[in-house]
């Protein structure tokens, strides 16, 4: 069962079945911006969106058996429900327990578990649905549709829910989704009360089979931790848009292709409809426009050729062109205005050399977890702005979104500020193949499992479809530290099938060289020594070499950085790397002695097992102040950062 299926009732055993990871969740689409009018587009303020953030009613249950199973049928929250802020982590709201752990699974030493789906005789039923260590958050709130959203199709988007959740509206089952770090969108239209009060119910489970592939090195939380919103779809709507900005080999001529998939409230609405597409240059000048008619199935393609001397996009000059689509119905009324920003840049791999717009590409990067010491992985747009400023100030030109997709706003900021992105799929199964430092893949997932392959390819598909238009993304990364097998090879093949000019990345193939030729365009290493890098690069290297993690900046560290940087001067195949990592993961908690607040880490919450201070590897302290080592980063990256030209 996947997104193609529909069902009328929720089934708790989906938590146990790796093959069930989304039910009625809509297919991912581009993250283009939609507005009801041209004025709204000009102001970047859409009336088609209604946030559902704020206070929800909430009931915490320590395990599935203790949960109020029928709460979604209620017309209002019972008296024993508390208030909780959405978005936010349930643990930080005061329930369950904060736990920081790295590669071990969070139940290490408490539960004997193995991933289901690896052998036919192990269905794994009950492993999570009947577990006493699987807390549940039951969320409830009401909303009334504002007048201007009535009469339209209504979707709900949960931008991030950890780790598995079921959704109901007005007592009707709507859907189920896993994949913590990508938006889950559902169609509420069949169940919505357009004029009255609607009650939306969401049941979030801390653990499911997704736990096996979300074993990232971080605090383990659950809950609705990213924004929730209602979206109204006008009678004609751009469901998906794919914009490709292509450059001639000499970089002097650009072509923009725009592929759209439209949907209509009623099939007849498409008849006579028109798509008006306008392209503006980075200075806001209108440089091209076309009008077309969608096919009867709602597909539309427009091509703008012969764009002379396009202003190229790169770190030094992040020039963005804007593609704006206006949908006009047969009567000439504007139904929707959609926007996508795009950039002309040409990424070329030639043997071990990688160039961007004809110049050698220097990846002066950092790994970035989303983090805020008050609210964990629930971060604000202001946090993102501060991070962009910090990177620009210190000559950091690239980010690996370790090890999951970030909030969508981040990619737009990277487009606007010229930060190169390695977009990483939400995948890490570290504890299934590496134990106490040794490679031991006896129950590795996704491995060579056809069931788990579906799960991870869906995650790749979601990431690609929502992020495909962002010029900042140069690399698709399959995930982190999950060993290598046919499932990850299928992810690589999926990304390559898109032929979008980006390169694929995955490090774990280092541990299983059998897949070297079918996984990753780059030779990726973590924590290799400068000598190790030099050795690879001097012995007929097959691929460009990148350090997806290096310079482990734990505590007082970052010594010897120069020995890596000089590889840029000596080895043409050295693409650079991403420092581990951007910001310490610590949480504020009351200091029992002084009554003030203090920054805490793993083990400070009676959390066991824990990896204690191992989350303190950032160039920034958890309060976002820079560590002293940053001046070294600024110096060395600055030597190569001048718009990709060596100073």
């Amino acid at each position: 069962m996947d997104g193609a299926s529909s069902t009328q009732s929720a089934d708790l055993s989906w938590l146990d079945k790796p093959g069930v990871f989304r039910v009625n969740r809509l297919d991912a689409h581009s993250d283009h911006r939609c507005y009801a009018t041209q004025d709204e587009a000009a102001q970047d303020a859409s009336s088609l969106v209604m946030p559902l953030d704020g206070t929800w009613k909430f009931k915490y249950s320590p395990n599935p058996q203790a949960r109020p199973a029928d709460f979604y049928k209620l017309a209002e929250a019972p008296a024993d429900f508390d208030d909780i802020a959405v978005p936010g982590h349930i643990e930080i709201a005061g329930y369950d327990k904060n736990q920081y752990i790295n590669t071990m699974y969070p139940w290490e030493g408490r539960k004997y578990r193995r991933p289901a789906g690896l052998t036919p005789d192990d269905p794994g039923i009950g492993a999570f649905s009947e577990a006493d260590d699987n807390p549940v958050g039951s969320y409830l709130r009401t909303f009334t549709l504002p007048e201007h959203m009535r009469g339209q199709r209504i979707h709900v988007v949960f931008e991030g829910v950890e780790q598995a959740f079921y959704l109901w509206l007005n007592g009707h089952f709507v859907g189920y989704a896993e994949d913590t770090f990508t938006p889950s969108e559902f169609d509420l239209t069949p169940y919505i009360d357009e004029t009255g009060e609607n009650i939306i119910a969401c049941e979030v489970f801390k653990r499911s089979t997704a736990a096996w592939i979300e074993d990232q090195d971080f605090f383990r939380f659950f809950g609705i931790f990213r924004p929730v919103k209602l979206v109204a779809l006008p009678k004609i709507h751009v469901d998906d848009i794919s914009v490709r900005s292509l450059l001639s080999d000499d970089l002097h001529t650009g072509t923009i292709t725009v592929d759209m998939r439209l949907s209509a409230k009623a099939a007849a609405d498409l008849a006579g409809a028109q798509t008006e597409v306008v392209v503006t240059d980075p200075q806001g000048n209108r440089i091209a426009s076309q009008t077309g008619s969608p096919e009867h199935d709602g597909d539309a393609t427009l091509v703008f050729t012969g764009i002379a001397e396009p202003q190229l996009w790169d770190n030094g000059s992040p020039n963005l062109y804007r593609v704006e689509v206006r949908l006009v119905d047969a009567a000439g009324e504007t139904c929707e205005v959609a926007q996508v920003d795009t950039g002309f840049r040409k990424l070329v791999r030639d043997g071990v050399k990688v160039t961007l717009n004809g110049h050698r590409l220097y990846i002066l990067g950092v790994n970035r977890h989303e983090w805020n010491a008050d609210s964990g992985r629930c971060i604000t747009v202001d946090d993102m702005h501060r991070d962009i400023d910090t990177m620009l100030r210190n000559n950091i030109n690239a980010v690996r979104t370790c090890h999951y997709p970030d909030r969508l706003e981040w990619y737009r900021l990277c487009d606007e500020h010229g930060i190169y992105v390695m977009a990483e799929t939400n995948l890490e199964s570290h504890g299934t193949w590496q134990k106490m430092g040794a490679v031991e893949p006896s129950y590795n997932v996704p491995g060579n499992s056809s069931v788990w392959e579906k799960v991870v390819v869906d995650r790749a598909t979601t990431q690609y479809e929502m992020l495909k238009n962002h010029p900042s993304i140069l690399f698709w990364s399959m995930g982190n530290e999950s060993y290598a097998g046919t499932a990850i090879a299928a992810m690589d093949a999926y990304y390559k099938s898109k032929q979008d000019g980006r390169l694929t990345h995955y490090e774990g193939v280092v541990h299983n060289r059998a897949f070297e030729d079918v996984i990753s365009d780059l030779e990726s290493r973590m924590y290799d020594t400068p000598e190790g890098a030099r050795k690879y690069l001097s012995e007929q290297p097959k691929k460009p070499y990148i350090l997806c993690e290096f310079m482990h900046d734990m505590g007082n560290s970052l010594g010897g950085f120069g020995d890596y940087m000089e590889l840029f001067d000596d080895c043409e195949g050295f693409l650079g790397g991403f420092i581990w990592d951007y910001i310490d993961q610590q949480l504020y908690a009351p200091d029992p002695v002084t009554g003030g607040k203090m920054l805490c880490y793993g083990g400070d919450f009676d959390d066991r097992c824990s990896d204690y201070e191992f989350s303190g590897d950032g160039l920034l302290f958890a309060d976002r102040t820079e560590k002293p080592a940053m001046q070294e980063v600024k110096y060395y990256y600055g030597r190569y950062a001048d718009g990709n030209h060596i100073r």
Partner: protein
Amino acid sequence: MEIIFGDVVTGVHGDGFEYLFSWQAGGPVSFNVNGREWLYRAPRPALWRATTDNDRGNGFPVRSAMWMGADMFATCSKTELSVDGEPVAKPLAPDNNAFGGAVQAQTMTMTYTYTLPVVPATTVTVAYTVTPDGTIGVTVRYEGKEGLPELPVFGLRFVMPTPAKGFTYTGLSGETYPDRMAGGVPGEYTVEGMPVTPYLVPQDCGMHMRTQQVTVTRDSVLDNSKRGDRSEFSLTFAQAEGGEPFAFSCLPYTPEEIENATHPNELPPVRRTVLTVCGAVRGVGGIDSWGSDVRPDYHIDAQQDHEYSFVIKL
């Protein structure tokens, strides 16, 4: 300047200074400048740093643990004095009866030898040379011994009676270590207070490489007659003429105090100044935090001799 040959302490006095070199405490017990005291206890060789995450990860403190004991328990095994270049063989009682009063001199050198509780044992020698303008030249020598593990640091630690208000130094910007100082910008910098870099687990911090001089400023004393007097006073530690720049850290804690804390808020209340003037500093490393050593150029070989000098100026 004049020298007072006491029974326990040899004092040297001049315009604005009074220094007391003890034969009992194993080092100077007073650097009094313009009526204000700069020493809380006799300075001792600095042979340990609070371990960094990378140190712990690569096993360095296990290999070099004996230096922590040496840092805490070095004992003075020999004291020597010379005045105007001539050794004074019998400066103490009853031979000091022969001086009959203060003795005028142009230079005086007290040399303390510390025997370190390491196996095999070795020594650090600290020589203080005072001249009439009150300048103290300091030379610190380490005697290398085959078989000794690498040193975390080699320096001289001054514990001052009250907290510094701040310090001004000429050297590199920010916190620097020998393998992390390329980004340090040369200049003169003033630091308020004695910031302890708030690493998640407290660890060695605040080092400043390639320093030409540092001036420590205080505005409080323990002297009961000067309670409430918050006028500022300073002392400068500078590169010796014709010598090399040095490294220093100016923190409110000893390495052992820092070593014990698991969070910054477990560090004790700030009561004193700990100024460590270093001739050699081990790098911090950075390849990883679970085994990789500091790059080869940034180790301190304890099997070799080390020596450095600096001056203390009024």
